[in-house]
């Protein structure tokens, strides 16, 4: 079995990580109903789940024999999940956005599960170059930021709807709309920069590697995502796009991005 393919023990630990995160989300929901005693167990489960995922990434890397990141589906998706999870835990420690973990941790779980599922599929073979590494870091780093923007966008929509329908009792467990909009905008800004860098590097990689043929679908999807986030970034110029529309666009962009990442797994990229 090639070392890039995850072993059964690694997948088992990954499954444990997913379970820990899932239970942590459940405790977080119960905690939001006033049971503060669940705060510590909830945090421990999140940290434990992420720690297990980090252990798996580390083990996988050691087994592969070299430290170049993002070389396989498994380490890419699991690393993305870990980065997203750790970033959110850091954000919640520094300046919490109430309810953010309910939206982001399921994404982290999904990434870990996808890593387990797609980790055993045949890899796309390519020679890693500076362009490819920068491309992957930019694209996947942008994906993490867009995932956060998608989460806060969804929270904004939900909270906004309840406030307008007046079904939300004061003292909601979500952060304020202003804070959610701010985090969405920051995440989109960061993600847009990384995506632009990643797309440019991918283009340069394409020019340098004559054996590589990029499927048109991937180019189009990437272009659409780029345009969506460019629109979001320009909401200060076009203020009628702020608030709910920005949130909807950030969710749409995130869904498209996920579709692109998944589609890439099944679309050949060589002659």
């Amino acid at each position, binding site marked *: 079995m090639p070392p890039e393919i995850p072993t059964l023990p690694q997948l088992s630990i990954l499954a444990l990580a997913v379970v820990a995160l899932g239970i942590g989300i459940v405790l977080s929901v119960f905690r939001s109903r006033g049971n503060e005693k669940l705060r510590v167990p909830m945090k421990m489960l999140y940290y434990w789940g992420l720690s297990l995922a980090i252990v798996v990434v580390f083990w996988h890397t050691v087994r592969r024999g070299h430290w170049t990141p993002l070389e396989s589906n498994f380490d890419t998706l699991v690393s993305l999940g870990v980065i997203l999870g750790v970033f959110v835990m850091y954000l919640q420690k520094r300046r919490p956005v109430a309810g953010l973990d309910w939206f982001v941790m399921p994404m982290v779980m999904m990434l870990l599960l996808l890593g387990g599922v797609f980790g055993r599929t045949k890899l796309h073979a390519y020679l890693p170059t500076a362009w490819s590494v920068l491309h992957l870091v930019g694209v996947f780093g942008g994906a993490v930021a867009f995932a956060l923007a998608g989460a806060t966008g969804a929270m904004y929509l939900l909270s906004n709807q309840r406030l307008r329908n*007046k079904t939300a*009792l*004061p003292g909601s467990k979500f952060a*304020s*709309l*202003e804070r959610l909009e701010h985090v969405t905008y920051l995440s989109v800004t960061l993600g847009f920069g990384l995506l632009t860098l990643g797309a440019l590097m991918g283009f340069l990689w394409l020019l340098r590697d004559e054996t590589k043929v990029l499927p048109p679908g991937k180019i189009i999807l990437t272009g659409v995502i780029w345009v969506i986030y460019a629109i979001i970034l320009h909401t200060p110029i076009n203020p*009628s796009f702020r608030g*709910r529309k920005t949130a909807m666009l950030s969710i749409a962009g995130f869904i498209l991005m996920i579709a692109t990442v998944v589609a890439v797994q099944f679309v050949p990229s060589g002659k």
Partner: protein
Amino acid sequence: MQRLLLLGLNHTTAPLDVREKLAFDASSQKHALESMRGQFPQCEFVILSTCNRVEFYAAREVHGSPRTDELLNAVALLQDVPAEVVKPHLYEKTDREAVTHLFHVASSLDSMVLGETQILGQVRDAYDAAAALGSTGVMLNPLFQRAIAVGKQVLRDTALGEGRLSIASVAVDYVRQIFDHFKDKTVLSVGAGEMAQLVLQHFAELKPGRLLVANRTKSRAEALAQQFGGAAVDFHSLADHVAAADIVITSTGASEPIITRSLMETALKARRFKPIVMLDIALPRDVEALVSEFQAVYLYNIDDLQKVVQQTQTQRKSAIDAATCIVLEHVDDFVASLRARELGPAIERLYAHHHHLAQEELHRTLNKLGHLKEDEKAHVEELARRIINKILHDPIKTLRAADSTHGLSAQYLHALEKLFKLDDRNINHEARKDE
């Protein structure tokens, strides 16, 4: 052996004018505690005086002073009010009932507004003031410390303290769900009446960047604005001020809406569609209902806010049972600990005293029975020990099982101490004379 006494009146037993006569401020409370300690030096006192109740907690010896009338007279004298005026409104509780009452008070179960959190701080302040004067001791220290802990637990573990019960605080909560920070926000009050003042009081605590007041009568606008460090603005330029404001509170007495859909549309364009919260607490409404169609406008009228208040009241009422359970658990535990604290040493002294008597008689008898072997002496000693234990078994069992709700435990213990002379000064085995 101590007894706990509570004497007090509250909003359900006394009208405001009677409560006012008996109420204490910080300095009169200090003076009262010092005076009562001077009059009854062996006792502990705490005075709890709030706008809705005045209560005196005292711990004294069983059959000691002050009794209820003595306490009432002392207080009436201090407050210069005839005792007959307050007496009909007073309630008196002792021991377990007093403990239960205090725990209910600290948990806001006895408050005019169920679940209000202010009372816990007031109980703490009353205890701190008394403790600082050395007016508390072995009874009132653990009692009030436990009461404060019970209050905290009830508010933490039940829904009793959740939600808001005033329209103004509900409005602030809604605004906090929309805006994250307020230093860069402008609050505009259209109207300068009593409701506006009440709501602005809450919003001023958010420390907004600007606070504006618009009213048809400029002088009233200026007076209200000055109260909160804001500025009065021209009522006739309302459209401009609404465009500049992030939070608009309307409470005029206008018969027609003063903020229409078209005014709002213009204001939103000028604001570049930044969100705006409109709190329309007027009746008839000051803001046209169609204004809520704008995505950037969050409009709440008096009904919306009142609905939340009613939901909170219902929620709190449903939490009463859970809160009462917590209180009663703590009452049982506290009373049991008090009993153990008093019974334990008394029972030990009883056993020690009687075994000492048995030893004295045993020693005298064994001297006369000098021919006894060691094992025979051991049997005789064992006999004496078993006789004492059997004699004391039933009284001790009854004492432990006494129903403390009716204070029988305290009475039995007091009788035991008197009948068997268990006061410490009487336990002097070296000086005991043969009867």
